[in-house]
């Protein structure tokens, strides 16, 4: 296994400018072996630009990006030996069949059409005799996914890979990614499907306006945000709304309270509620979606008390 302390992908203050438009302002993150890194952010935030820069398709205007310790632009060819990539929009040559394209892509990475390839084709239920012209978006993605999963790489990059897949195929995708993880591979997964990211990713990077605004594990991120609490108490709780860290307090009939609580104030609030004799209590950890919404809402920007 590769040394787990050394990142496979290392990005340090990466910048990219298209003419006057600064697409990437400040991107930094690392991906380690055996790790699935979720890359999320609104449309146009710079996810695909980051990925294309990592792949040496675009030339960075500042900062540094290395894979296996090598510069992504200068040593692109060497690096690509150990990379598998599935673009966000898969365009395939219309007059070749899916099967021909899979084989070609494998040969280009010096891999073979193996038993694994055969199994993947069967699992994804792809008709490989059809010309790419006739494929739907999902089927085009399957072609690229099959080629990627059956090639032997150390870093797998998926740019919104499941946006055209049905739930069954999405599950196959997730299963395959977990296998890669178990095998100690590094995976960069850019996605909009938050449940997918939540389920599979060890760490997450949130990008907005060309900047990474947050990185860390979901647990760490949750810590930054609030837990939703639905509580019923025997005694009234007049002071609750004045306590620090309490937000969005609403009262339903039967003395049911809905509120959200800052993680760091959890202890105080719970102690207070216990004094008021809890009848029932439901706590929901913030979903990635809640996190996401907070960071995405660009009109409010990142703030800890706004909604």
């Amino acid at each position, binding site marked *: 296994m590769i040394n787990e302390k050394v990142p496979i992908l290392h990005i340090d203050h990466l910048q990219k400018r*298209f003419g006057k438009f600064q697409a990437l302002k400040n991107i930094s993150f690392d991906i380690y072996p055996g790790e699935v890194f979720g890359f999320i952010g609104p449309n146009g935030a710079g996810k695909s630009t980051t990925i*294309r820069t990592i792949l040496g*398709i675009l030339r960075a205007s500042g900062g540094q990006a290395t894979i296996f310790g090598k510069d992504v632009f200068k040593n692109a*060819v060497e690096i*690509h030996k150990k990379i598998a990539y599935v673009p966000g929009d*898969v*365009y395939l*040559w219309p007059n070749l069949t899916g099967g021909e394209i899979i084989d070609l892509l494998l040969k280009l990475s010096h891999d073979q*059409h193996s038993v694994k390839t055969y199994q993947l084709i069967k699992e994804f239920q792809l008709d490989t*005799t059809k010309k790419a012209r006739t494929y739907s978006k999902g089927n085009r993605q399957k072609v690229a996914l099959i080629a990627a999963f059956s090639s032997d790489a150390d870093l797998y990059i998926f740019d919104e890979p499941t946006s055209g897949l049905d739930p069954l195929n999405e599950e196959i995708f997730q299963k395959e990614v977990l296998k890669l993880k178990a095998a100690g591979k590094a995976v960069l997964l850019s996605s909009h499907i938050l449940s997918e990211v939540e389920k599979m990713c060890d760490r997450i990077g949130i990008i907005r306006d060309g900047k990474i605004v947050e990185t860390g594990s979901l647990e760490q991120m949750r810590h930054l945000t609030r837990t939703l609490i639905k509580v019923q108490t025997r005694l009234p709780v007049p002071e609750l709304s004045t306590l620090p860290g309490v937000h969005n307090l609403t009262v339903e009939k039967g003395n049911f309270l809905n509120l959200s609580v800052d993680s760091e104030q959890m202890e105080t609030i719970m102690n207070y509620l216990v004094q008021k004799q809890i009848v029932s209590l439901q706590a929901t950890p913030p979903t990635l979606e809640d996190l996401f919404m907070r960071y995405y809402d660009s009109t409010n920007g990142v703030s800890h008390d706004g909604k």
Partner: protein
Amino acid sequence: MVNEQFKKTFFLTRFNIKRDWLKIIIWAVALIALFVGVAAKFTGLYGTQTAIDQIIKTLKTPAMISLFGKMPSGPYTTADVFASEMTVFMTIVAVIMNFSFIIHATRGEKETGTLEIIQSHSVGRLSNLSSALLENFLINLVIGLIYAIGLEFAGLTGTNTNGNFLLGLGLGLAGFMFSTIAAVIAQLTDNSRSATILSYIIFGIMYLARMVTDISHPQATWYIPLGWVEKFSTYKDNNWLPVILMFCLSFVMIFIAFTLNNHRDIGSGIIATRSGKSNASPFLRGPLSLFWRLNRVSLIVWLFGLMILGATYGSVFNTIGDILKTNPLLKQLLNTQAINAANILIIKEFLAILMIVFAILALVPGLMLINYLKTGEEKGYLELIHSKQIGRLKLFNSILALAIVAAATIFFAGILGLYVGGKAVMKHPIALSIFMRGYTGYLSPMLIMLGISVCLVGWLPKLVVLNYGYIVVTFFIQYFGKLLKLPDWSKKISPFGFINQVPVKNFDVSTFWWQIAIGIILIVIGYLGYRRRDLLIN
């Protein structure tokens, strides 16, 4: 019901014109400038009767008939010379323009998926096709009218208003007729590539048929729609019958296209895409074999197309190389040997023009291949390749190698066709070595032309189309240079102008090498740009 089918046609037409306006303007300005510009120059060139008589003698030779069409009978004025030089040529240019517009509007839209969005709105089933046809009709009508008015103002000796409008509107209508033909073909195929290839095959067949009948049986040209433009007999008879025929054929084609359109699904064609192999052949293993695989059909069509074009021209060498036909008096003045030598010289001179035409035609697939580094990138087809262990240099070299080999081979096929065709009909065939002299002679300017495209792809990918324009200018200067008495320097603006009439004259080794050197330098410069720039993303 009928109205429903065409709902929003006018709206879509306006939308199309808005979308295409730049392309429309460039084509229209180029065509009008060419036509009216030549007209304006003509009185100066062929104002005197002696000048007219002289050029008429040339235009009446079979060689010139094969290139420019049949002359009506005399006596001749400046206007007659103009009409016979320009009619066939302007039709060819119009056909290229019309194919490009109609296939883009009917097939290109389907491929990008925009048509699906439009069709999901309250738009008639036939509206897309009818708006595309209407757009083409308007473009041709406006260009035709400006031709006619331009001729009125140019005031060539021997023109009349009837003839001016016949020629102008007739040329416009001829263009439109070909867009209706392509519209039918676009319904048969399910992608723009096949539609383009098929349309040009049909056009090519008509062109060859027109050439052969012009030389041997001018009456038979009536059977060929492309030949109708010659039958205007502008300024002599001012015959409007061909215009009526064109209208009729266009209506029939439009009717067929609508019927076909009504009987198929959006996005599909009558000729369906077949399934293929589920595995790649061992041969398909890298960028070079991929590019060959992607383009093989069109390259093979180019190869055989040029070979057939060559063979057809070759098959009229006996008529062309018969000096006695145009000048029977020579029989008394010269002995057989001298007459033979004169005949061979005529053919060689004709060959010098043909070879440039063939070289330029063979360049088109070469340029298209090189431009794929830009177009393929733009459409996203190359993104998967770029993520592989394929360096830019390898990708670049693969496409360049294929482009050079393809252009050289296709050019060779054309030359071979000329040789074989000529050999079949001539009593004293011209030696293959003379053809080969011409072949090697034009390889070096071809390399420069490919090099220019490489440079554009590397440094100014947005402007790759410019090189097509340069080729067209080159073609025009070489083709018309003598007839329009263009100044000598004009030839030197293109690398082809430095190849001094090979194979009439000898092949110049030093020219060959300095041109090859320039070609290589351009390629290296292009690569340096390509290596360091961003790849295009859609």
